[in-house]
């Protein structure tokens, strides 16, 4: 029992962080009104070269052979610099391809040769051997795969299977949004949650991204209040500001600790896994929303400006909150705390 990363895991997290800080810092999203899909797309071969898409996949699926713990550390860093949530889609699609006898597709996904996009259901949807519903597709690439999941399982589709696809301005301009509908479409691959607990895996990796957003927003706020002077002293010396910062630290400790527990519980029984991952999603997205909003507030007028990066965290936190369903969607899973030992 040890919830802290070991030396090798720390090294993985550090190298991911160093790469993203240099190549895809959050501030890259400030320069544009609409995201430069091509710039983001250009990073995919480099993610692939670093082994991110296959980090947690078994070696016989072409993966690196690490597990969810290392991946949680990866997605936390991805959240921190607001890198694309579609990295998770590619990772899911690669596993689904590998497990459904499509090793070539899996290999292309792992190599970053083809991309995958998250398709988030916006209402009641049906996923399975036949798929229906309305979806928001993030940074849709006509040549890439589209990945949708719910509690039943994970489906991999093609963009052209969606009807009435149209681009819509996105709250989070760091990703583009295309809305489309599936009507009884047959996915190119489908894995049920019984076959592999991928929906729970996806939920906890979204939680890990939310932890990263929360921590980055809190760190930004902390830096600012130590630096910003009003009334002749740093505003971080005022007790109300201190308590805001303490509240962020408190929420983030809860979020990350629970996300780690949920990550490690993916191998546990279904009830435990569902409970722990739903709890992680809840506390981590609460933390992300709290820290992102407080970061704006503590930056004052500057925090409300598009040229300050504070709003980027606000928007990404909301996006992650909605991925895979917000709090109402997971109420029932949380009715019984298994108190695992």
């Amino acid at each position, binding site marked *: 029992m040890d919830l802290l990363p070991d030396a090798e895991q720390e090294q993985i997290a550090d190298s991911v962080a160093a790469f993203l800080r240099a190549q895809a810092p959050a501030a890259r999203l400030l320069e544009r009104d609409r995201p430069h899909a091509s710039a983001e797309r250009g990073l995919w071969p480099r993610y692939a070269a670093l082994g991110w898409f296959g980090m947690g996949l078994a070696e016989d699926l072409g993966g690196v052979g690490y597990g969810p713990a290392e991946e949680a550390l990866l997605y936390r860093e991805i959240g921190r610099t607001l890198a694309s949530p579609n990295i998770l889609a590619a990772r899911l699609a690669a596993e689904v391809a590998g497990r459904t006898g499509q090793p070539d597709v899996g290999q292309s996904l792992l190599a970053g040769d083809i991309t995958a996009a998250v398709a988030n259901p*916006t209402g*009641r949807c049906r996923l399975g051997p036949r798929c229906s519903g309305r979806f928001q597709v993030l940074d849709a690439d006509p040549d890439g795969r589209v990945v949708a999941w719910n509690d039943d399982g994970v489906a991999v589709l093609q963009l052209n299977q969606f009807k009435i696809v149209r681009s*819509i301005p996105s*709250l989070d301009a760091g990703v583009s949004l295309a*809305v489309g509908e599936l009507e009884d479409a047959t996915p190119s691959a489908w894995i049920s949650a019984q076959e592999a607990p991928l929906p729970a895996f996806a939920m906890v990796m979204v939680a890990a991204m939310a932890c990263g957003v929360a921590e980055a927003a809190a760190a930004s706020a902390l830096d600012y209040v130590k630096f910003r002077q009003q009334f002749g002293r740093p505003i971080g010396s*005022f007790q109300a500001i201190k308590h805001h910062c303490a509240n962020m630290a408190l929420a983030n400790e809860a979020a990350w600790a629970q996300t780690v527990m949920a990550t490690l519980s993916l191998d546990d029984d279904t009830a435990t896994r569902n409970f722990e991952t739903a709890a992680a999603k809840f506390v981590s997205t609460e933390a992300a929303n709290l820290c992102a909003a407080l970061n704006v507030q503590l930056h*004052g*007028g500057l925090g409300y*400006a598009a040229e300050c990066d504070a709003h980027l965290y606000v928007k990404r936190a909301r996006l992650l909150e*909605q991925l895979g369903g917000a709090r109402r969607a997971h109420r029932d899973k949380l009715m019984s705390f298994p108190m695992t030992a």
Partner: protein
Amino acid sequence: MDHQFTEDDRRFRQDVRAWLADNAPTEPRPDDGPAIRAFDLAWQKRQYAGGWAGVSWPSEYGGRGLSLIRQMIWFEECGRRGTPPLGSLSVALNHAGPTLIMLGTEAQKAFHLPRILRGEDVWCQGFSEPGAGSDLAGLRTRGVIDGDHLLVSGQKIWTSHAHLARFQELLVRTDPDAPRHAGLTWIICDMTAPGVTVRPIRTMVGSHHYCEVFYDNVRIPLTHVVGEVNGGWSVAMATLSFERGPGLITSQMALARQVADLIALAGGLPDPMGEGTMLQDDAVRGRLAQLNAEVAALRSMTRMAVSRGLRQAAPGAETSLPALYYAELAQRVQQAAIEVLGPAILEREGWSEAWTHEYLRAFMDTIAGGASEIRRNIIAERLLGLPR
């Protein structure tokens, strides 16, 4: 204690309602750029022509000279009708006008008040600076007396609608040797004067709301000083207290409308988790019920403020109460909206865009015009007498 209106007041309300039914703009207000100014001024002109501009402003300057209650009724009916927000005229109507009425010279009043009421000028407020936000008294833009002019150099920031404004309430430091709150002067700055440069800043909503303003030896006649040279702090405090006055009523009414809209929306949206609508979820229902109670309480607070206003010459620190309550309630309403909308909050198009827009816009409510932290300090220190 009486919540009824006099027969005359009721008639006045009927008149307002009838006029608004025929005259309130039906075309949508533009979202960004100079079109906002044209729209806001046109609507103000129409009000003036109809005899509704400046309900409680002195009649000698073009107002109606009626009571604060009638002013409140006007705003309430505007809110009920859903007329456009004061928008770029907010500073002129809620800050500059009341400040001039109370503290301006005869010449200032005679010149500006009719122009404001007739919808000729947009005003902006030059208080905040890069180094002086919450700490307003720390401002450093300099004003040097040069004969019968003030020579102003420095910078303001977060100046709402400066890019649209003709005049500005400008607060500058005229005595650098005086203690922080002394040595400030409140002066009317013509934004077209040589040396004024305005840079609009895009907000997190995506449009342009506020600006940086730079002053390079801007010459302003001393006759444009409101109050005394070096007496600007108390003028600025009066200005800020007006901000929390009846102008809040339109925001309050808009918020009540939002909650009503949200209830209607939730009643129509299918619940992706169940068989019924979102409104049939008791958690959603309970939350909206609570928000409705709170918007009602806010309405009562503004009426309490008007009741106090009827007995006071100038608004006191109590005006911070409804202002703070509004700001935080507005954000709670947006939280509830997100719960009702679900993933639709991510889509900035169609019916959901208004909610997304308002969600982002409301972040400003707890920052602009005094951050919530500063408002709480004011309540604690000035209203409750806690030691600094």
